[in-house]
């Protein structure tokens, strides 16, 4: 019984290590390959596919979360007569925390899963193999443009999320709940520091973008060429990305905000 359990643990450990090795190999291959100027249109196409097509969900979610933050914040701050600090609270929470995290989670669900499914299906239908046989490296042609596309767009989406959220917060606080507009914006302007807060939020979203697109590409490229394999890979993308975003968020916060 004990030997059986040890065997299982050993097998699982080997599988995890081998999977990590394959993921690192894929990443290094995508990064090391000599950049080809002909791939620039492919990267632009991926920026459209992964970024522009995600704008609607990012804007809607940013708006809803910004409005809810303003409502929740107001109900607490008004009790102590500090509703003028509402703008600052909404902006800091969005820029440093919720913007990067929620936009990365949404990105994993919409764009990451799509990348995994697309590459997994290309593998299952031998499109990657046929590309190899034509003498075109799928790492350069398929993997690298998606990697750079995803890496570039997530910080931009996170910024967009925060901006829309702050705007929604101002609509709720100023236009609906009657918080004085001057104090809402001026307290925010005084309290939010570009280098201390905005840049750190952007760094978070750069790290999340790197991790999410890496997981998405690896899960698709390494998926079993079956319907079940594809379904597992897509689920893994969303689950692993979400867990890694939250874990990394904790450590990044710990490191960057000197707690």
């Amino acid at each position, binding site marked *: 019984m004990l030997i059986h359990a040890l065997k299982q643990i050993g097998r699982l450990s080997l599988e995890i290590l081998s999977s990590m090795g394959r993921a690192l190999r894929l990443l290094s291959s995508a990064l090391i390959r000599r950049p080809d100027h002909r791939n620039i249109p492919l990267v632009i196409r991926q920026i459209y596919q992964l970024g522009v097509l995600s704008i609607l969900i990012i804007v809607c979610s940013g708006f809803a979360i910004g409005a809810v933050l303003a409502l929740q914040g107001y109900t607490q701050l008004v009790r102590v007569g500090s509703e003028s600090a509402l703008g600052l609270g909404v902006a800091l929470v969005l820029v440093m925390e919720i913007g990067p995290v929620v936009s990365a989670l949404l990105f994993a669900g919409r764009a990451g899963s799509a990348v995994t499914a697309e590459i997994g299906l*290309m593998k299952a*239908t031998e*499109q990657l*193999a*046929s590309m*190899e*046989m*034509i*003498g*075109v490296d799928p790492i350069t042609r398929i993997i690298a443009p998606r990697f750079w596309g995803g890496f570039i767009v997530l910080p931009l989406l996170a910024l967009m999320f925060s901006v829309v959220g702050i705007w929604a917060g101002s609509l709720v606080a100023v236009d609906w709940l009657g918080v004085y507009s001057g104090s809402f914006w001026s307290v925010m302007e005084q309290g939010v520091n570009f280098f201390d807060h905005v840049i750190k939020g952007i760094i978070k979203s750069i790290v999340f973008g790197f991790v999410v697109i890496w997981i998405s590409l690896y899960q698709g490229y390494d998926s079993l060429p079956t319907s079940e394999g594809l379904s597992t890979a897509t689920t893994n993308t969303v689950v692993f990305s979400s867990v890694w975003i939250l874990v990394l968020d904790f450590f990044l916060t710990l490191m960057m905000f000197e707690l």
Partner: protein
Amino acid sequence: MTRNSIVFDNVSYNFGKKEIFKKLSFEVPAGQTVGIMGPSGTGKTTLLRLIGGQIQPDNGTILVEGKDLKKIKRTELFELRKCLGMLFQSGALFSDLTVFENVAFPLKEHTKLNGEMIRYLVLIKLNSVGLRGAAHLFPRELSGGMQRRVALARAMALDPKLIMYDEPFTGLDPIALGVISNLIKDVGSVYECTNVIVSHDIEETARISNLLYVLSEGEIIGQGSPQDLKKDDSPRLKQFLNGLPDGPVPFHYPAPEYMDSLIGMKNTERAIIKRGD
């Protein structure tokens, strides 16, 4: 001395615990049409993947156009593949590109031809497989047989030195079958291209091949011209060529005795039946 396009020297390949090839040795002379036949599951597609360098043998040497696939770098392998063409069993067309774009893909990637020249070449290739009129369609709008014809046009796009065909005759109607098999033969003779055809279709493969190899259980059980093979008295070869179920070539995948399987049901099998899978 005849130049060989492909040389297999004592090649062994295992898939998991299953031995696919046991010290396989054979040559494919340049400019010839060579048919490789054998029962299902004997590793014919694996053989093509080995030739294309998509998988590596466990032992032995494979030379393709004089290059040792084990020794060349990845960049050299991709360079070598520019002079190879392969028709996949499934067609493997790029699903987000039209028929025209699929055939133009290798030309755009590997040549510096202008758009007009690429258009001419694509239309010539598509015309040869009878699908010039389908140039604007996407692969999903074509039947399986038509997809394979487009894939054939794509495989021939760069006029490669060596073309590998994985079951090129499957799913074709009699007219398309005749046209495609003649096209393969013509490509070989006109362009002095080496053709390697993997197929179950004994009649059609024998008709257009100069040399045939018959594979079974990881080894070559017969080789020679189609006429030589017909005269061969080997029981394994006769069984395959005549399509007989009983003989030295097993029809069944390795399994326990039939009655034992029926009577002695294993727990795992019982669980599967209970689940209704």
